[in-house]
């Protein structure tokens, strides 16, 4: 039964003449789970669920307050009405209302995107190779080229020019990258104390920017640093399923991302 299914799949793969003759499986071990992933599922998830629990009646109250604030902003908008183009620019999709607390809907890290914007690629396309190679070395995954979507005359940019490189990480590779960042790279950076407490874009995405001294701090880059004619900085975007900033920050702090606390303000309740 299983053999038939396995054989059907194997038929799609070109096979060498003769068998392997070995008595054990030769594929990589699939019982592996990244350390941060294990930590999240075993420890963090339950803690986040408990810390972020809000009873339904209180949640309803919070939603009313948020709606009232939005309405007040709309009503008190002073000055002349904006032009049609400006109106369209201002209309962003509203963030979705926060979901009811449940046992199964804690926030998790969904995707990490590492991005290198290579200005030098405008004069010499070869410099983009440095970015592609660097991302492959750091992330362990093949990077892709990003082409310009718009023209920008001041920088001699035309639509369709390759200008950046990015790699999108999910699953175990994402957790491994975060692990390296948090355990090796961030501690080695000079004068870095952590993310600020106003970090976050409001919908659960966090972006960290690094300059060109940071890329050499990755363990894989030690061996091949001389290979790169061009060493640039990079940006890391951590996309979580948290709906609001405080929930996202709580999640990231659980994964050992450092946060710099300002002086604590007493008697301040907040909404998650």
């Amino acid at each position, binding site marked *: 039964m*299983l053999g038939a299914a396995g054989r059907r799949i194997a038929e799609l793969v070109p096979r*060498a003449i003769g068998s392997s003759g070995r*008595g054990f499986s030769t594929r990589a071990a699939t019982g592996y789970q990244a*350390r941060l992933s294990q930590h999240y599922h075993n420890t963090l998830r339950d803690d986040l669920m408990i810390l972020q629990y809000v009873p339904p009646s209180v949640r309803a109250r919070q939603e009313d307050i948020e709606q009232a604030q939005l309405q007040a902003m709309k009503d008190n908008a002073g000055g002349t009405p904006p032009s049609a183009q400006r109106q369209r620019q201002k209309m962003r999709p509203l963030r979705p209302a926060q979901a009811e607390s449940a046992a199964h809907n804690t926030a998790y890290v969904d995707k990490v995107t590492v991005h290198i914007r290579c200005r030098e690629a405008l004069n010499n396309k070869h410099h983009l190779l440095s970015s592609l190679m660097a991302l492959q070395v750091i992330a362990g995954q093949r990077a892709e080229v990003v082409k310009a979507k718009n023209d920008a005359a001041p920088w001699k940019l035309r639509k369709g020019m390759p200008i950046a490189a990015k790699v999108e990480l999910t699953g175990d590779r994402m957790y491994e990258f975060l692990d*390296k960042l948090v355990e090796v790279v961030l501690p080695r950076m000079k004068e*870095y104390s952590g993310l600020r407490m106003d970090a976050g874009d409001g919908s659960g995405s966090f972006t960290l920017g690094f300059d060109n001294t940071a890329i050499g701090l990755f363990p894989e880059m030690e*061996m091949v640093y001389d290979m790169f004619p061009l060493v640039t900085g990079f940006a890391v975007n951590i996309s979580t399923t948290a709906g609001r900033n405080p929930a996202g920050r709580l999640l990231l702090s659980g*994964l050992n991302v450092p946060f710099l606390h300002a002086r604590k303000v007493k008697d301040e309740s*907040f909404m998650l």
Partner: protein
Amino acid sequence: MSALGRFAAGSSLSTSRRAWIGRASKAAKETVKRTAASGTRAGGPSHQTSDARYEMMKQILFQEEARQPPQLSDEDMDRHMTILRAQKIYRMGESAKRRSEREGKFEAMRRAYDALEALDERLFDGACQKEANMTFPRQMRVATETPPTRVWDYLK
């Protein structure tokens, strides 16, 4: 580097290739020094537009063929699929165990909150208040079998 543990740097490049990188990067640096010494035209283009290292990068990125996956016989494939299936069943069991624990905790918490809400308004409001800017403490590190003896202190 022992401190790095599982992140210890290991190059996937062969020794000959690494020697080549060393020579090519040295050559590139010499060229840059020579051009600087001779004095390039102000604002003119660099003479080293195509670094030799870029040729190697092009080869690595675009021309090297991916390794072929190992060829398995029928029996090996049976064993492999059996192992995969067993691992999946194990993972499903673990996940179900964790889920039932989590749902039990959630139910207990919900019932406690409901009971408190019915009992006392003031205490219920106090219980619902959360600390502003709540984060896990830095001392809560991810569990590991070989923790470092010196923990990095960002605030120094």
